[in-house]
């Protein structure tokens, strides 16, 4: 199976967000970047499918030049090669734009399965993968927690997560697009050997300007203002050192809330 995995690089999980001076984005100067959480799960799933069925895994990203760090990690985990669309100006930052650019970058590629994450940890739009599927004319399934592929029969079953702990199996022909949900399986760490090998693997860099996208007609979302949500807390805050707050809490829970 030939599998393409969308990897987005985002500000890391432990980022203490601060708002940038223009009030429209986060202050990036002291941020460290990592692979978007569910994209890492998508890559893990692709690697498992390759182990089971043979084939090739290609990682695909669009972002600033620095995103090659995440590409290298993907290659170290076991992907065979990378395609990096370089967009240093952030021109393609809306879902339609990203999907249009990724679709254009895939024009020369052949694949059976394309995996994206359910949602990005920065914009959290939860739409890029499905838009990409529609642009490529492929069937899709979202929020997938298990994949059962049958490349010989050119078909695939996917287990979609639903509300309240329910799941739904769906079946579709290949090629197809799935958006993978965090938790689908346990993500591997890159091995030392993997890290060494990754250095020699190919990353094809594609400048955004070289792609045939008619930017005038691409719908665009603009983040006008980014801000901390108002805290509407009615909580009674307990203060003091650990000993003191623990004592106060036990007292409150017993005498005031009467839940102990």
């Amino acid at each position, binding site marked *: 199976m030939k599998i393409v995995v969308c990897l987005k690089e985002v500000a890391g999980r432990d980022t203490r967000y601060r708002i940038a001076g223009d009030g429209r984005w986060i202050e990036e100067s002291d941020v460290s970047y990592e692979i978007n959480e569910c994209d890492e799960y998508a890559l893990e799933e692709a690697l498992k499918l390759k182990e089971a069925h043979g084939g090739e895994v290609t990682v695909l990203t669009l972002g600033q030049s620095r995103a090659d760090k995440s590409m290298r990690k993907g290659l170290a985990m076991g992907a065979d090669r990378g395609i990096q669309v370089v967009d240093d100006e952030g021109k393609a930052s809306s879902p339609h734009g990203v999907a249009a650019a990724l679709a254009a970058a895939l024009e020369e590629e052949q694949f059976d399965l394309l995996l994206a994450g359910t949602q990005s940890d920065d914009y959290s739009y939860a739409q890029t993968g499905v838009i990409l599927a529609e642009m490529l004319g492929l069937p*899709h399934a979202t929020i997938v927690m298990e994949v059962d592929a049958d490349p010989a029969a050119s078909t695939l079953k996917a287990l979609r997560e639903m509300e309240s702990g329910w799941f739904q199996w769906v079946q579709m022909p290949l090629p197809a697009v799935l958006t993978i949900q965090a*938790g689908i399986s346990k993500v591997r760490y890159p091995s030392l050997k993997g890290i060494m090998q990754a250095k020699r693997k190919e990353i094809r860099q594609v400048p955004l300007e070289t792609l045939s996208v008619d930017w005038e007609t691409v719908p665009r979302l603009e983040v006008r203002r980014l801000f901390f949500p108002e805290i509407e807390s009615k909580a009674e805050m307990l203060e003091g050192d650990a000993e003191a707050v623990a004592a106060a809490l036990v007292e409150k829970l017993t005498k005031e809330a009467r839940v102990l």
Partner: protein
Amino acid sequence: MSEPIYVLIDHGQGQIRSASWEALRMGQRIAAETGGALHALLLGQGARGVAEQVAGKACASVIYCDSGRLAEYDPDAYAAALRQVLEADRPRLLLMAHVYQNIDLAPKLAAGMNTALVTDCIGFRSQDGELTFVRQMFRNKLDAEVAIHSPHPWIVTMQSGAYSADDLEEGQATVHERPVSLDGVEQRRRQLEAIEGMKGSVDLSKAGVIVGVGRGIKKEENLEMIRELARVLGAEIGASRPVVDNDWLERERQIGSSGQNVSPRLYVACGISGAIQHIVGMKGSQCIVAINTDPNAPIFNVARYGIVGDIFEVVPALIKKLKERA
């Protein structure tokens, strides 16, 4: 006069989903502030009965599409039906609930029609004739106001709970069937069986006390402290999704929109930020205690008692105090 606003109403087993009532409420609000008639739109087989349930709410009309191809959800058929209606009627907005089915459907529709989609919105702003939407970004930690540059209809999905169905204005709407032609639409994706994934040895819905643990615990080994706290409290352990995704605890212990719904008498949230997907599963608890190092963590919004502090200091102190008391 502004172009109309449409709201897609989701339903199952003859019941309208509560999140769709909320989306309708948002539609009423936007229509009141910015003008334009509000129409409800339903897809299904034999959808008239459900459509009539909406007719008692304030909107201009309720439109339904009735077809065997719409009996169960299929993205190709659903997107094709919606597209036929939207291209004929040209509303400026299509609102819907941000539920799993629409997460699957809305981007497909938006791509097919080449119009913008703004997902998981918690509010809107109307200023100087421009409509913008407010939504969460960056792991639910920041809010953003988003402006749209796109032809109509803009598609907007609403976060559950952002508006209250109790505020819906009553009215009397006419109900119309809208014929759609789906014969040419190939069904590529087939629905197979549905399974309940949370069945296991633990049933948190009956627990009187729950200690909830989040990513703040950092590693699996650190869970021992949480187990000890649960023991002295006579509590079950619940978790946020990442803890379960990392395989540190069983899937049945996940609390939230894709996990269990719990309403114990006491819920102690340790190192949980309070993302909406978690909150919906535990906000019915009688008394919520939150322990978190970040004073801005949204978990404090639902807590009765809050402690801004490090769980690695507060939890051991709490265990000690509870033991002394016993």
